[in-house]
């Protein structure tokens, strides 16, 4: 294969104009279910989530630890193992050339689409790369069989891809410990995108990095996304990252989506009390005004509070919040919120 052909291979963009969203999640429920001595215990980590992610957009998910973010992306990536089970709902991908209902596939078919169409940038780059193998071998281990190229062409493709991401191909000869944290994270991003997947899931990729490196890694993610026109599901609890990177944003609380909209709308005009708290409590340089933290602790998902799960910590909780689960309602312009105080729920 000549270099020219290789370039064509790398740059091939699906011809057909996609019409359906890149990802459609409908009423997804995924619970951790255990049964010991006849006692069933359920942890409702993902509870009735419906969302759409369009082609060529970065969709952010924000929420505190134990809000079910990781369980949600594991379920979306089809990387679940018991005791986490999908109870109901569906996950539909549209990769342009192929439409996939993830949970109707056989496990081996699911494995086949992973990495090629669906890539996953994980948190903690240190533990992703095998410390005993050079970076080059990690690329071979992960991506070789998905690319379907002979080995020399594959390695050339990898080097070209690295150059495109402004990484020196020399990193291929390094062991992970020889690279700095930021460099390792960049290698992991290169690794996840080498097959030019249509959908990328990024789980807190910059949480352990310091500010300077964080910004350069985010810039790289944005560049990769623009260049490949991929969709990214970006998960982090850092609201400043969402403000600067994502196109649309979903706020998760205790396994449910509580608010969703364009990132700019959400930051300018947050409606759910939890979102308001998340945005208002951010300290910023040049402003030393006292801020208040949120009282209380996230609910135990094995025994979540009835009604709105945020009501025990909510400053404006009403009677109805303790009884009725607020439905997700549209406020127009793609802005949706699940809060009785906004949508006017009453006790029946």
């Amino acid at each position, binding site marked *: 294969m000549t270099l020219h052909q290789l370039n064509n291979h790398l740059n091939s963009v699906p011809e057909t104009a996609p019409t359906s969203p890149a990802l459609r999640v409908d009423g997804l429920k995924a619970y951790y279910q255990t049964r010991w001595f006849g006692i069933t215990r359920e942890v409702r980590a993902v509870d009735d989530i419906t969302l759409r992610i369009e082609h060529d957009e970065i969709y952010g998910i924000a929420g*505190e*630890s*134990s809000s079910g973010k990781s369980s949600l992306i594991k379920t979306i990536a089809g990387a679940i193992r018991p005791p986490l089970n999908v109870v109901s709902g569906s996950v539909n991908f549209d990769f342009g050339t192929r439409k996939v209902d993830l949970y109707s596939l056989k496990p081996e078919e699911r494995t086949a689409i992973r990495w090629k169409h669906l890539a996953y940038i994980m948190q903690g780059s240190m533990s992703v790369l095998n410390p005993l193998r050079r970076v080059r071998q990690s690329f071979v281990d992960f991506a070789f069989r998905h690319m379907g190229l002979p080995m020399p062409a594959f390695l050339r493709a990898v080097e070209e891809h690295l150059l495109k991401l*402004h990484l020196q191909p020399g990193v291929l000869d390094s062991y992970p410990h020889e690279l*700095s*944290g930021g460099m390792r994270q960049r290698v992991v991003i290169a690794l996840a995108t080498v097959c030019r997947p249509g959908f990328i899931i990024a789980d807190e990729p910059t949480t352990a*990095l*310091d*500010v*300077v*490196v*964080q*910004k350069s890694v*985010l*810039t790289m993610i*944005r*560049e990769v996304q*623009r260049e490949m026109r991929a969709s990214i599901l970006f998960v982090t*609890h*850092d*609201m*400043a*990252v969402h*403000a*600067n*990177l994502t196109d649309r944003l979903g706020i998760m609380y205790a396994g449910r989506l509580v608010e969703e909209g364009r*990132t*700019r709308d959400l*930051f*300018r005009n947050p409606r759910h009390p939890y979102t308001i*708290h*998340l*945005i208002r*409590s*951010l*300290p*910023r*340089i*040049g*402003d*030393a005004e*006292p*801020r*208040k*933290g*949120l009282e209380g*602790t*996230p609910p135990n998902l094995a025994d979540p509070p009835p009604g709105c799960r945020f009501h025990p910590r909510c400053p404006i909780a009403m009677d109805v919040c303790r009884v009725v689960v607020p439905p997700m309602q549209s406020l127009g312009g793609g802005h949706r919120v699940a809060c009785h105080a906004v949508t006017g729920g009453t006790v029946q």
Partner: protein
Amino acid sequence: MSGADTALLDVRGVSRSFWTGGLLSRRRIDAVKDVSFTLTDARPEIFTIIGESGSGKSTLARMILNGMTPTGGSIAFGGEDLTTIRKTRDRMRFMSRVQPIFQNPFESFNPLSKVDRYLTMTARNFTDARSQAETDAASDRALRKVGLSLAEVKDRFPHELSGGQLQRIAIARALIPGPRLIVADEPVSMVDASLRVAIVNLFKDLRDELKVSIIYITHDLATAYYISDRIIIMQKGEVVESGDARAVLDNPQHPYSILLKNSVLSPDVPDDDEPQTIERDRAARSY
């Protein structure tokens, strides 16, 4: 700066270097180079050390905690040079006055023992409390200072508590001996953004109400601006800028400080017709 006799902590020209490599390829790494600062006894303050990973912040913290000896310069706490602390009794007395708080609350607690054990052991080692009732009382007093109570945490394992709660318990533990100085090494970087404010507010209360000085080590400029009185910015082991926290962060002078400040992502969204910061950056990069 007042005289040496009122200095709580006096760090003078402190350096620390490490040797790496084999016999023939020995290489010296200067983790900390000639750092000096003084905390006064009279006025408790939050003193922030900022820098990227590998800038020597944590090495400096370990030397202040007397977990590592400097290769150059000296550190004195309450007028007493740390190198003179040799006897166990002196060491215990030093530890009761200088207490650490670590980065990751999930790692600083043993997952197999109950969290109140840490409080009990600290109370037994560093205070006069001997009986169960006395150590419980000491633990409860410390927990109340951080907005918790012994009833809430007793007999709980670390996995049953949230990161924010664990970090507050770690702070309560550090308060039991009644320290004068707390060295907090990146105490909020593993804590959710929504809980960060609660933790840094707690540091403010400790300074204002309990008169404890705090050395706050972080790379988060926003919380540093929010709580600190004075600040030093470190790069590759050297202090590149220091002074009043607000003044330094409002108007940084050193190129590295400016880079740091510019790298902080603002939590404000741009106007509709403007691209996002990351996008603007990308356009500005020249290749």
